[in-house]
């Protein structure tokens, strides 16, 4: 069969060159993703800011809570460029606040809190959304009621309810889990519990279409259980819409947490988050605009990066657009 003689009548059917290595799906996705400049930038910035808030405290070892009244109200170092008389110093590169706390250290600590809330709430929303979507798409009996429930939750006024929940349940959770821990649990759960609906709808739609396909029929005909079909065959196929809604979820979670902190119902006053740093500085932003602008820019850039990442992922993961 594999005899390579010159008179082989099947020579035309054989490959002239060695076959190329098979390309995996994720390599295709990456190739498409690379072409989206905004997505590359966004993803890069997200990785950068995540690493910065994780590793930051080990590099910039200043305690964000340490009061230093002698060095209060310092300006960032770049102010010295146009205002030589401003109180600046290299040991406080971004200045200090009205109690002498270092702003760079506070931004890093605040970023930790904001990103942690964002990621945790996003994961929670994804878990709820995906399970509701899968169950409702796969099991016909559950579909009607789960979707009615999703519609109902969609018509709840989210921001007012968030405000109500956070203000009213602050005290008992604080008593049980400590001021920071209680607030973290509360904010993550209220944001997660109120933002899973879009994911559920998208996943349900995809599952409904997928479960009529032949490979599911084949899997069922060899006796695969429902759980295994969902885990092995359905979930890998809906991973792309889940990833896209994950990016959107991360963006909304970060914004919601900052908005709650801004309205004064977020974390306790000595616990910095980006939204809180921004809100606390609004009173004196005429004298110290950088205290508003720096956390604001960090929030905006992170959300912008995440949104661009989502845009690029949507293009890259859609096989109809890919390759064009």
């Amino acid at each position, binding site marked *: 069969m594999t005899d390579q003689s010159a008179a082989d009548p099947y020579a035309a059917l054989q490959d002239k060159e060695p076959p190329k290595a098979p390309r995996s799906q994720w390599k295709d996705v990456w190739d498409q993703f690379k072409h989206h400049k*905004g997505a590359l930038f966004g993803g890069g910035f997200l990785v950068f800011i995540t690493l910065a808030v994780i590793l930051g405290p080990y590099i910039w070892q200043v305690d964000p809570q340490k009061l230093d009244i002698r060095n209060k109200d310092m300006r960032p170092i770049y102010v010295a460029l146009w205002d030589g008389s401003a109180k600046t110093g290299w040991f406080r590169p971004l200045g200090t606040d009205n109690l002498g706390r270092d702003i760079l250290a506070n931004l890093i600590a605040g970023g930790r809190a904001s990103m942690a809330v964002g990621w945790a709430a996003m994961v929670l929303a994804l878990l709820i959304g995906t399970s509701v979507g899968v169950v409702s798409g796969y099991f016909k009996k559950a579909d009607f009621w789960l979707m009615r429930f999703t519609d109902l939750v969609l018509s*709840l006024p*989210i921001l007012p309810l968030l405000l109500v929940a956070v203000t009213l349940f602050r005290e008992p959770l604080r008593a049980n889990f400590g001021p920071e821990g209680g607030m973290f649990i509360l904010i993550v759960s209220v944001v997660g519990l109120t933002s899973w609906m879009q994911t559920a709808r998208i996943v349900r739609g995809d599952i409904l279409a997928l479960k009529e396909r032949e490979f599911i029929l084949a899997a069922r005909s060899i006796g695969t259980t429902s759980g295994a079909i969902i885990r092995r065959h359905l979930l890998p196929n809906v991973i792309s819409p889940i990833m896209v809604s994950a990016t959107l979820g991360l963006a909304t979670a970060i914004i919601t947490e900052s908005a709650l902190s801004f309205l004064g119902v977020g974390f306790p006053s000595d616990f910095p988050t980006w939204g809180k740093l921004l809100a606390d500085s609004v009173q004196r932003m005429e004298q110290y*605009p950088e205290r508003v602008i720096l956390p604001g820019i960090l929030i905006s850039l992170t959300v912008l990066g995440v949104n661009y990442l989502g845009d690029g992922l949507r293009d890259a993961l859609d096989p109809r657009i890919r390759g064009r």
Partner: protein
Amino acid sequence: MLTFTIRRLILSIPTLLFISLVIFLLLQLAPGDPMAQVPLTVPPEVKEKMREALGLGQPIHVQYWKWIVQFFWIEPQVLFDHWFGTSFAEGKQRVISWQTRSPVMDIVVQRIPQTLWVVGLSYVVGILIALPIGIYSAYRQYSVFDQTGTFITMIGFSIPPFFTGPLLIVVFSVQLGWFPSIYDTTHVVTDWASFKIQFMQMIMPVMVLALQTTAQLSRYMRSSMLDNLGQDYVRTARAKGLKEGAVVMVHVLRNSMIPVITVIALGVPSIFGGAIITENVFKVNGIGQLLLTALFANDIPMVMTLTFIFAILIVLFNLIADVLYGVLDPRIRYD
């Protein structure tokens, strides 16, 4: 279409009841005590009396039922009386705010015009800016205008209003001194000069809210136009010699507006929610600010009513969006 509308209207009643129940239970579960501010010298039995006077002594389902009756039966009667001078609601118990001891709806009616002015105007401004941007960027896809437009809308989409608000205040009120940073709601427009002041103080809150609307809507408009520009009927219209303006502005635009109009209707409630933050930044005393103060003061009837008004807005505009979609698109028939 009429049967569909009626069916949706009837279906929205259980939805609203469910939402009111959720809000009610949430507020019931909450540990706040309205008697917390009462001095310690007041004896406990008097406190108990005061509690009962607030309607707190009864079981939960009775309280819920009373609230429903007050909100859905007595308050409409008050409105009816107000309009036609009748006296149906005479002597009946209305929803009373614990902060001011006056009917909640009276305060809401005082506050709503400010919110409506700022929110409504910002929405109109946002739509007026977003539609041309969306149309032109779709028509010249991948042009410089499209690229910058997409970039700017992406930024507008990502910058939260509690950052743009202070930023605008720093630039335009503090540095340049063009606009006032605080919205003066007692200001009355009588002549040209006072109208100018009113106009100046509205620019910044309206622009902050409009930025969000513009960013979302122009993205929708662009993708909807792009979907339609590639269709066969566009080629037909061009082939039969229609002017380019007529093709784009009449044929394509009318078809692309169908999904965009539903998005516009669906966005109205969320812009009210966003107004909570903007009102807080610019110190507009609208209903968003009222909700915040009521929350901090533990004024449960007020919070309940306001949250429920937001819910009614959402359900109402969902319904409007559905009905509009059916009216505008003859391919969609619900019956």
